[in-house]
Structure formats: structure tokens, C-alpha cells
């Protein structure tokens, strides 16, 4: 963990972040961003506190990925401010990574692009996403779901202070998605890292989230999953059916499906 501004003065806090949080690891204030003449973010404020799981939801084109990219410093704002705790270590899983077939790359190499890791660490992290058998496979032979798991493993492998995951459940079936979010919650419990998630799968994401921002160019509403499910703006955007799904999450299978098709029974 980097030593950030742990002192408790009010001025250390962003002025207009609507929800209280202790020492944001990353925060975006009053962000406005235009691309190709289109307003993508309008006066958006958002922050992720220490050991907090924050989820951005919203319809396609709501600016979720753009807001995340802004927070990471990958996009420049027209106006507004981005603050990141000094020395913040980030594990980032982008929404899309297109690997060029001409670049030969094993999973092992993909995992260690920017940092060397021991075999033990590599095996352990791949094992946690149930793809340990793929360590020496070429990344070009992976299925969409396998690659998604490898990407998640890669983001976790760095033992980040902040895990940023842009739709980690894509290409993964519902049971797999539930597993992924359980894994994220477990990781946070074990390491105390913060998590910033982008998702449009309300069913599974809410179980593991502390705070939700509902985004549609601007922040429509934000709060705990319970709070926003009753919010008028949320209902307008997603409909009452979606709000209802927020209540269904705790649900257990007596077995799990590994990506290779085998079935693991829970004990």
C-alpha cells in the first residue's frame, strides 16, 4: 500500500464528491469530456475509497469505460480534475485487448509483461481463476472465456492497491460470472485492495459491491445497491425488472463448472 494522504483534514477531500468516503485512492471531480463533438461525460464526480468495491453501471454508451480511462489517466479531460494517491499500484483489465496474431506470446509471458513473477505466484493466480493448465499455452489459442480469466489473473497478479476491471464478466457464462465476482470479493477481503468495476450485468455484480454509480453521461444516482435500486433515475434507466434483480443475488450452486468442462462439487 502506498502511504497516501492519511491525515484527516477536510481540504484533503475532493469538494464535490457526493458520497462520503475515507481517503479516496482515486477520484474524479467535475469531469467533462467531449470526443468527436459528442459530450461523453458531463460534470461527473466519482471516487474509490480504501478497500472499497465500487461499480459503475449504465446503458451502452453511458461513458463508463471513458470514466474509468479518465481515472487511470488514459484520457484527458476537457475540464475537471483527477487525483490518484501517489505511488498507487493499479491492476487494469481493459474492456478489450486485441492481441496481434503476429506477436508470439505465451500466457506466462503475457502475465509477466511488466513485472517478473515466480512460477509459484503464476500458478497460484491462474489456479484461483481455474486456468492453471494454460500457463504455457499460446494466448492466441485461448477461448474468449479463458482469455477473460487470464486477464483477471493478470490484473490480480500485481497485488494492486486498486483493481480496475472493465466488464470482467464478458465472454463468461452466468455461473462463471458469479464465480468471478466471488473471487473479486474474496481478493478484497484477503488483500484489502480497492476495486473499480464496470458492468452492465446487474444480476451478479451487486452482491459484491459496496457502492454503485449509475452513469448516463452524468451520474444519475449513486449509493449502496439497496439505495439506488429504489431511486427514480435508476428505475427510469433500467426499469423495475432490473431493480428487482438486485434482490436476487445470494444464490448457491452445489457444484461449479471449471472452464475445461469438469465439475467441482462444493463441500
Amino acid at each position: 500500500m502506498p502511504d497516501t494522504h492519511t491525515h484527516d483534514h477536510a481540504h484533503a477531500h475532493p469538494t464535490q464528491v457526493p458520497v462520503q468516503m475515507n481517503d479516496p485512492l482515486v477520484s474524479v471531480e467535475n469531469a467533462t469530456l467531449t470526443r468527436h463533438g459528442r459530450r461523453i461525460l458531463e460534470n461527473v464526480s466519482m471516487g474509490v475509497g480504501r478497500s472499497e468495491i465500487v461499480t459503475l453501471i449504465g446503458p451502452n454508451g453511458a461513458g463508463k469505460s471513458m470514466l474509468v480511462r479518465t481515472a487511470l489517466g488514459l484520457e484527458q479531460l476537457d475540464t475537471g480534475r483527477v487525483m490518484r494517491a501517489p505511488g498507487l499500484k493499479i491492476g487494469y483489465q481493459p474492456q478489450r485487448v486485441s492481441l496481434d496474431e503476429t506477436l508470439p506470446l505465451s500466457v506466462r509471458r503475457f502475465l509477466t509483461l511488466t513485472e517478473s513473477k515466480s512460477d509459484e505466484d503464476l500458478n497460484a493466480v491462474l489456479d484461483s481463476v481455474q486456468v492453471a493448465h494454460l500457463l504455457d499455452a499460446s494466448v492466441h489459442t485461448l477461448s474468449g472465456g479463458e482469455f477473460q480469466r487470464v486477464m483477471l489473473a493478470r490484473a490480480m497478479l500485481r497485488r494492486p492497491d486498486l483493481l480496475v476491471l472493465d466488464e470482467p464478466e464478458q465472454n463468461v457464462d452466468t455461473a462463471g460470472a458469479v464465480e468471478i465476482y466471488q473471487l473479486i470479493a474474496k481478493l478484497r477481503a484477503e488483500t484489502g485492495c480497492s476495486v473499480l468495476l464496470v458492468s452492465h450485468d446487474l444480476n451478479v455484480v451487486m452482491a459484491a459491491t459496496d457502492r454503485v454509480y449509475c452513469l448516463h453521461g452524468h451520474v444519475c444516482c449513486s449509493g449502496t445497491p439497496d439505495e439506488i435500486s429504489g431511486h427514480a433515475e435508476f428505475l427510469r434507466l433500467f426499469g423495475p425488472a432490473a431493480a428487482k434483480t438486485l434482490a436476487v443475488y445470494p444464490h448457491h450452486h452445489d457444484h461449479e463448472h471449471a472452464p475445461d468442462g469438469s465439475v467441482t462439487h462444493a463441500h
Partner: protein
Amino acid sequence: MFEDFMVRAVVAGVGVALIAGPLGCFVVWRRMAYFGDTLAHAGLTGVALGLVLGTEPIVGIILTGLVIGLALMILERQRRVPTDALLGILSHSALAIGLIVIGFMESVRVNLMGYLFGDILAVSASDIAWIYGGAAALLAILFTVWKPLIAVTVDEDMAVAEGINAVRTQLVFTVLIALTVALAMKIVGVLLVTALLIIPAAAARRFARSPESMALGAAILGAVAVIGGLFASLQWDTPSGPSVVAAAAGLFALSLFAGATIRESVR
């Protein structure tokens, strides 16, 4: 035995292949073939600049290469003009302007064919010193940025989020490419430089399982193409630069066949 000019040609050509191969891999991975072409075409303007300044042509070539390379890098980052259109405009206007300026210089006899198609049989001992000094320096620089450059090539956003300085890495790469093109021009000429960068790299892809083995393979296959092409040109009295490129193309064709065979036997 062989004539001195032949020995010098082989030594010089192999020196260029040793740096063109590894850098060419990045040109292939980053889909920058047209970028290499543009730099090569701008080399002719560089020759003209060298004549105007009264310096060695290679000084003019390096200067224009750096200017064009950096200009392209900046314009590309702004994403205002489609890159391929921009490259097409710069590439052909640089070629045209170079030809016009050289055409005006009646007082100086310029071996235009030599610049367009290379004049490897005319390399001098000092050319060889330039080539090996240059290639050694370029390889050393490439070695120091290798890891971040691979990370940025795989996915720039992910690399930046993990703390890699993508702009600096790309800047170094642009300079390396500009200098490599300047070195390679002597051997195969403006019109065939890109071929020496990308064909050995593409041929090496079939046999490579890691970025490093592909870079090594490209250097070796490039050297084989130089030696094979030169001896073919001696044997059948064909133009030397084009013969080297044709030999490289032959190796690429063979690699497609051999790659398929290897893959079959693995199954």
C-alpha cells in the same frame, strides 16, 4: 576467391540485417509497414537535404527521418487524421520533393538509382564502420527498452496503467526505426527498405514461440537473405538490392510451407 567488393557487400548487408530483423518484428507487430515506407521515402528528401547542406547524405537522411518520425508520432497521438491517409500523403510528397530537389542539382551527379534501389556492391570500408557502429548502438538501445516496448506493443493502455511511460518508449522506438532505415537505405535503397524490415520478421513468425525468438529468427533469416541474394546477383548478374529482397521473399514463402509442415507433425 571472391572479389573484395563482394566480401564488403556481404559484411555490410549482414550488419544491416542484424538490426533490421529485430526492429522489423516491431514494425510487423505494431502494423507499421507503411510507416517504414514513409520514412524510407522521406530518405530521398534527406539525400537532397544532405546535398544542400553539403554533408554526407546519411546525415540528411537521419535528420529527415527523425523529423518525419516525430511528426508522425505526434499527429498519430492526436488521432485527427486517419493514420494511413496521413502516411500516404507524407510518403509520396517526401519522395516527390526529394526527386525534384535532386533534379535541380545539376552541378552534383547523384546516383539516383543507387538511392532508390541501393548500391550494396559499392560499400566502402567506412560504410561498414558506419553500419556496424550504428547497428551495435541501435541494438544496445533496443535491448534497454525491450521489455517496456513489448508491453506497450501488446496493449498500450494496460502498460500505461501499470506505470510504463508509453510516450518515452515510443519515442525511442521511432528514433530507432528512423536510424535503421537510414542504415538500410545504403543496402537496398529507398524503395525496398521496408521489405528488409518486415519480410524476415514475417518469415520468422512461423517458427517463433516468443517475441525474443522471433527477433532472433528475423535477424538470422535477414542475414541468410542478404547472403543468398548477393550470391544470386553475382551468379546471374541481377540487381543486388532487389535480389536480396527477392531472396527474403523466397524464405518467407518457404516459411509458410515449413510452418504448415511443423504444425502438422506436432499434431
